[in-house]
């Protein structure tokens, strides 16, 4: 047999998508966010996305730190405002591929208003929402997604506020693509993100992830591995399920899958079609390269 020299790589291929000089990252042991970041990076690689034109915007929170670890133009913005910030990026340079990567408290709590309006407008944003049922970074407070009866630092006797069913919220606001997986379903997550990358409009992918340090500890759910085992035993894949039926109750079944995948004109499509109809030749759309006016006498590219 011929000897082929195998060069043992020092880092995984995905390292090109990450800021390895900042490793190790801040996330706790057994936290699921790193896994979700990995899946996102893998999906980008498989779709051969032009990384120069990809931007990542995140908010505040554990999940919000993801922007700082990915080797893309990254923006770590204010709490809850990742989606409008990303809207500004996308609308002022339409050729960008913009991803919002943030947590349940950031996107559905303080950012709830922006979430529903972006879904309504169907702006071209890929939104990866890490749902660990808590505000992890600040110490495990009650979140709009915390299941009934679950304990948190601000509801020490258990939560009595009904939580959001995020797929239902997104779908009813108009999101054309809604999916949910857990941090265990790495392969499906990669395929779903890959598929979503190719689509337009407001695409929401909810990732149920373990929070061993706060949510699991405050509710005595064991380690992150115990939570992953729980997902293994209790996640049920139901592609095409009605979003109204996929609410999550405390330590009950988690329905995963792709729930919504419809064709709905995106914000840009609606805008162009409308202005062309109303203004005809007078309509001058924003160029895909953006609204930057260059100094023709200068040395800028």
């Amino acid at each position, binding site marked *: 047999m011929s000897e082929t020299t195998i060069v043992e790589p020092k880092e995984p291929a995905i390292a090109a998508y990450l*800021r390895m000089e*900042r490793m190790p990252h801040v996330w706790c042991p057994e936290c699921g966010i790193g896994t979700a970041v990995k899946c996102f990076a893998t999906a980008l690689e498989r779709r051969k996305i032009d*990384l*120069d*034109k990809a*931007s990542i*915007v995140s908010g505040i929170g554990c999940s919000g730190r993801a*922007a*700082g670890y990915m*080797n*893309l*133009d*990254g*923006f*770590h*913005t*204010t709490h*809850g*405002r990742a*989606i*409008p*910030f*990303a*809207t*500004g*990026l996308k*609308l*002022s*340079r339409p*050729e*960008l591929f913009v991803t919002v990567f943030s947590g349940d408290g950031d996107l559905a709590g303080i950012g709830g*208003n*922006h979430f529903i*309006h972006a879904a309504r407008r169907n702006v071209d944003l890929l939104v990866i929402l890490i749902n660990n049922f808590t505000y992890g970074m600040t110490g495990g407070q009650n979140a709009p997604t915390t299941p009934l009866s679950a304990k948190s630092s601000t509801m020490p006797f258990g939560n009595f506020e009904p939580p959001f069913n995020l797929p239902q919220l997104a779908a009813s606001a108009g999101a054309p693509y809604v999916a949910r997986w857990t941090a265990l379903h790495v392969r499906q997550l990669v395929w779903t993100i890959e598929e979503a990358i190719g689509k337009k409009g407001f695409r929401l992918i909810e990732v149920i992830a373990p929070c061993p340090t706060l949510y699991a500890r405050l509710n005595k759910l064991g380690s992150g591995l115990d939570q992953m085992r729980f997902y293994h035993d209790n996640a049920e894949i139901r592609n095409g399920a009605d979003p109204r039926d996929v609410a999550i109750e405390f330590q009950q079944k988690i329905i995963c899958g792709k729930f919504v995948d419809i064709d709905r004109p995106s914000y840009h499509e609606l805008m162009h079609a409308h*202005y062309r109809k109303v*203004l005809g030749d*007078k*309509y*001058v*759309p*924003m*160029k895909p*390269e*953006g*609204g*930057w*006016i*260059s*100094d*023709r*006498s*200068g*040395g*800028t*590219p």
Partner: protein
Amino acid sequence: MKADPAGVLTGVHYLDGDFAAGEGAMAAGCRFVAGYPITPSTEVVERIARRFPTIGGMFIQMEDELASMAAVVGASWTGTKSMTVTSGPGFSLMMENIGLAAMMETPCVIVNVQRGGPSTGLPTMVGQGDMMQARWGSHGDYEIIALCPQSPQETFDLTIDAFNLAETYRVPVLLMMDECVGHMTEKVVIPPADRIEIVPRRLTSKPRGEFKPYQLNGNIVADFARAGDGYRFHTTGLTHDERGYPAMNVECQEQCVRRVTGKITHNADKIIRLDEDMTDGAEVVVVSYGITARVARMAVELARAEGVRAASLRLITAWPFPAARIRQLAMRVKAFVVPEINRGQMVLEVERCARGAADVISLPHYGGSVHDPAAIAQEIVKAAQ
């Protein structure tokens, strides 16, 4: 560079201040506006909504002022000049993201057409009560530039200056109009595009591997890299180092705060613009801004007619405050008279800078209308005694 003719509506117009601000923005090269309706500023975005689709601009009415400001900061990172427009209540909502823009050193313009406050206040009537908020509205230590036009023509001119200052100093610039100037209709002359100088976004010429978003390289501000040009930079509202990465330690905090404040403080003399009238040899100086400056001008004339050596010092830039000039004048004049359509805000700065060397008389007006020039004149005469 010269302005892009697409946005310049050259000619002689009869416009109100709000429309003039919109035209100024378009002439300056602004191509992204995100706003939310609020009286008395809405006409600015209404004008822009009408003209932008024909000049390659993008206007979006966002769901609230927080989203508007966030979108403006985001849009600026693609190299696009961006602006939002609001009044008091919206200004309060935008504060967190103005702080973000200051921290990330993002050039942008925020127009505040001030109205009576606090809270919902007098939506359709004049006020100047946001002046201190302009300087201190967001938390933490940061610096901004604030400009106060007194007429629709000056609104057009200062809007262009606002964008130029924002680009030069990579800072949010506030155009502090008031409802009177905003809703006053006057002649506005818009020159041809090749007579309008604008400062373009200065992009880095460094190769990708060497670019650091906050490395000054001997300049006042770091060079910019647009999102989408392949620089793969990172920026954050957290205290960050030159690479834009979060670095939360004492040394970095000091460096960061010095960086975002120093560029304004050390260049204040280049930024500050005043309109002085007969301040040499004056005994009483009237310090005013915005619509009040026009009323004060009449008051000064009335006072001079009574033999008082009255002068007017109009703040074109309210922030950074002309501390040195006020101190200088304080040594020579008897008194400053400061009429404002608020309970006395900029007068506190005048007092601080005068350091007791001259009397400082505050003439507050709680809002809703302008001062009576005769009342100001009376105070000037009294101050001269």
